[in-house]
């Protein structure tokens, strides 16, 4: 047992992974990850080449160069930092480079706001990266280690974003299990790069240009890695459970088997929802929770399987989506359910933008709305906001 913040848990996992290169640029609230790691470098406890770049654009560019050169590569960022990386983010996934990035989720400007919401990673949701969302510091730690194995799996070879809520999780202190260094080392194993740039005797060309005669095929083949990840994420989770006793899959179904009312949410808010579910269950309300851990690839069939028999479902989105009818998680859940013979009524709530608190009473309010919808079969308001001054 160690007492660590989410950021510290990530730095600790990174130390144990001991990547070949970390290229990074500071941004709140993930800055302590790299600060802590820099101390490991300064103290000589890791072999990593730390490249402290002059911007996030260069950090991701250096990560891509380093990973193409043929080794383990990591970085940390969030918010405008991720936005500044954007064009290179696509290069990383298109080259099928197993880079792991820790992202303390944070709002995007303007107005400037350094607090948590998912607008940053939702903007990068279609970039071809795997996205894992962590509920607490323990899962931050566990996800970094599993992400290495998922990203490097020969069938996947796709970069992974390990997302966690800015400040809420990044700065939250928790007692958590840290595995012995040897256990982590054995779990992730040796990395065998394919087509490394440093193999000058077998020169390869990275990043040629495609005319209309090839890009569709290249994009189509790239997505195979993401589809393969659906199984690999589950497999790696099972293997990790054997080692640590902690179980992870694409989703977490909480008291859903016999549930009538369900909430779908990601990251830290799931803990609040679990408390509310426990309370409602004591009162005889058949409430449940579906936490999405892997948003990309989206586990549509698992979502459908777990929600199909419910009466009403509320999807909680923590991102601002200009002009859309609801948030991105809502759209995914609706798509997963639409072609089923029977499915629940689904509504959407936007919450937690720019770090706005969500209290148990707000979640209770959502379940009350769901209960009304379940009884009447009628949706009065498709899209609502939690804890908003109106």
């Amino acid at each position, binding site marked *: 047992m160690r007492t660590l913040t989410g950021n510290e848990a990530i730095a600790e996992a990174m130390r144990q992974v001991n990547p*070949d*290169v970390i*290229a990074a640029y500071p941004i709140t609230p993930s800055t302590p990850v790299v600060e802590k790691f820099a101390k490991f470098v300064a103290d000589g406890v890791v*072999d*990593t*080449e730390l*490249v*402290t*770049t*002059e*911007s996030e*654009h*260069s*950090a991701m*560019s*250096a*990560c*891509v*160069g*380093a*990973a*193409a*050169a*043929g*080794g383990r*590569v990591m970085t940390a960022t969030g918010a405008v930092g991720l936005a500044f990386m954007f*064009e*290179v983010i696509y*290069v990383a996934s298109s080259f099928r480079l197993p880079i792991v990035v820790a992202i303390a989720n944070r709002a995007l400007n303007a107005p400037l706001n350094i607090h948590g919401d998912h607008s940053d990673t939702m903007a990068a949701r279609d970039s071809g990266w795997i996205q894992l969302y962590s509920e607490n510091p323990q899962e931050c730690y566990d996800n970094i280690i599993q992400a290495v194995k998922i990203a490097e799996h020969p069938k996947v070879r796709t970069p992974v974003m390990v997302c966690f809520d800015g400040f809420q999780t990044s700065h939250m202190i928790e007692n958590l299990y840290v595995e012995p260094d040897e256990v982590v080392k054995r779990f992730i194993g040796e990395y065998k790069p394919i087509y490394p*740039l*440093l*193999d*000058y005797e077998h*020169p*390869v*060309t*990275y*990043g*040629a*240009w*495609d*005319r209309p005669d*090839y890009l569709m095929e290249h994009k189509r083949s790239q997505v195979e890695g993401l589809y393969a990840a659906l199984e690999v994420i589950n497999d790696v989770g099972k293997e990790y459970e054997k080692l640590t006793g902690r179980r992870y899959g694409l989703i977490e179904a909480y008291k859903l088997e016999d549930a009538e009312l369900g909430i779908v949410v990601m990251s830290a808010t799931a803990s609040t929802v679990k408390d509310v579910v426990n309370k409602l269950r004591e009162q005889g309300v058949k409430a449940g929770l579906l936490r999405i851990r892997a948003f990309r690839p989206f586990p549509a069939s698992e979502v459908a399987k777990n929600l199909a028999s419910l009466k009403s479902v509320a999807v909680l989105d923590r991102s601002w989506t200009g002009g859309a009818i609801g948030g991105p998680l809502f759209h995914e859940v609706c798509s997963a359910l639409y072609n089923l013979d029977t499915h629940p009524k689904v509504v959407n709530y936007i919450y937690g933008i720019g770090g706005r608190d969500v209290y148990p009473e707000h979640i209770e309010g959502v379940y009350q709305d769901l209960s009304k919808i379940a009884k009447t079969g009628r949706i009065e308001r498709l899209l609502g906001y939690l804890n908003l001054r109106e």
Partner: protein
Amino acid sequence: MAPIRLKDIAGKTEKFARGHRLCPGCGAAITVRQVMLAVGDRPVVVATATGCMEIGTSLFPHTSWRVPWIHTNFPNAASTISGVEAMYRAKRKKGEVSKKIKFIAFGGDGGTYDIGFQALSGAAERGHDFVYICLNNEGYMNTGGQRSSATPMGADTTTSPSGKVLPGKIQWRKDMVRVMAEHGIYAAQACPSKWMDLMRKVEKALEIDGPAYIDVLIPCPTGWKGDPSQSLVTVQKAVDACYWPLYEIEGYKIKLNYKPKEKIPITEWFRSQGRFQHLLKPEYKDLVAKIQAEVDRRWERLLKDAGEA
């Protein structure tokens, strides 16, 4: 370092293969060929920024590169190669790579002076061991010949066209070699018409442990509206007009590498290309005089700094 001899490089398997898609007479192609010949048998990894050179040499499923080569985006040849070089250092430390590998990044003037400048300056400050070569055709040619901060005053480009009230580009060009030298690194100005000088500079830069910058004025018959068969003759005029002096800076010390026997007027450089034709009209007499005065001022300063005045 023994001087490069023609008989040593003739007949070598070229690392920059034939069959690229750059325009006839393109100075970028000529320069990269000279650079890759100067690399010789050294193991090398190359990064290239988006632009003519990248587009002309990497149309899938073909490649002109017989060396490991990477293109990611337009602004980041320097930061991409930084990562490659960092991985090389990590692997050397762990004993996974034993042979010495060299790293080269190519960028156009747009990818170097403008959008890639931050990445280049950052990489130079961090001291990565790489040679950055700017293929400077004084404009964004791959996107149709727009002005860049390397475009000289008076040039007619697609975003600084000469018109009824404007003469073409109205600003001076950025003096990038001086800027890069102020990072405390080796920086040189070269030209493919003086190929021996260029190749010697490449060799020198490769031998340096740390960053090095070489700015090469490359003729672009398409963007400059010049005669493709006269590319190297054209660009030599820039050198002989002392508009593009050949020099190098090492440890902040300037060395002049070539002094034309006779300094030709800037108008001879203008006459060889379509982009300057309007300047030859009488109404631009004053502007031409102003440009000539600036060329003279920069040349005099260089002579003084190099201890030649």
